[in-house]
């Protein structure tokens, strides 16, 4: 596998990687820096890439590791409820949204952009868990290991993050005229 192979296989994935980095970092400037660092790290490790393996998965893993290595754990603390209460609150809220027809935001044509903006607006401790579990598909246990927190904390933060995302997406749908104003509860 040559350096030419690296560019031919890895560079076409840049748009997907950029979107991933924007969601992970929460802002465009940091995302661009992260993408550049990811490609430099990937080039250094290209000799260890196994031909035929999934280049995308390999790159995204490098991106995630690069982000976590550079990241200083945020000092911001979030008052956490228990996972069960967070889940219940989310279900109650979503039921109310559905009863009011507010989940129609999911059918909006530009929902991806709205969803990305909502993810970027989350506090980092919550945003990271959305990326690990909801975007990458890690289990709660794997995410707990990555974040060095108990599984209960993963659940609480993840469920709170999803609740906040849905609140923000309902507001977006109201502002865009997709659903009537004043739907959120």
């Amino acid at each position, binding site marked *: 596998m040559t350096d030419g192979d690296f560019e031919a296989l890895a560079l076409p994935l840049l748009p997907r990687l950029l979107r991933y980095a924007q969601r992970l970092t929460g802002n465009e400037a940091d995302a661009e820096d992260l993408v550049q660092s990811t490609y*430099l790290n990937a080039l250094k490790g290209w000799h260890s890439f196994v031909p035929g393996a999934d280049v995308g998965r390999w790159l995204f893993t490098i991106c995630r590791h690069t982000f976590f290595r550079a990241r200083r754990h945020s000092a911001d603390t979030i008052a956490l409820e228990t996972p069960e209460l967070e889940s219940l609150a989310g279900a109650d809220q979503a039921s109310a949204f559905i009863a009011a027809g507010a*989940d129609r935001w999911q059918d909006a044509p530009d929902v991806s952009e709205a969803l990305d903006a909502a993810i970027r607006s989350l506090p980092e401790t919550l945003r990271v868990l959305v990326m690990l579990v909801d*975007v990458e598909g890690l289990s709660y246990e794997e995410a707990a290991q990555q974040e060095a927190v108990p599984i209960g904390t993963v659940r609480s933060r993840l469920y709170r993050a999803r609740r906040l995302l849905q609140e923000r997406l309902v507001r977006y749908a109201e502002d865009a005229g997709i659903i009537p104003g004043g739907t959120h509860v």
Partner: protein
Amino acid sequence: MSDTDLVAIDCTEAGRRLWAYLDGELAAPSVTEMEAHLTSCAKCLRLNQSQRQFLGLLHDDRTPTGLEAQAAALREKVRQRLAEERARSR
């Protein structure tokens, strides 16, 4: 486990378990109880479907069209950085 060991759960309990159920993080008996509830409760079934759709949108990693121009500009920067890195390591 036999059917007689299963506990009928109500909407409140189903709400507590919903995210873990959708994430595949519930133990088998709890899954069976959850699914039994969903077959008999239209409200919770609707909630389950809506939240599943929400998670599907989160997991969708296709690139929005608005990102293409930014990605093209960044691709050139990356090419340049890679060329510099190769020149440095020779």
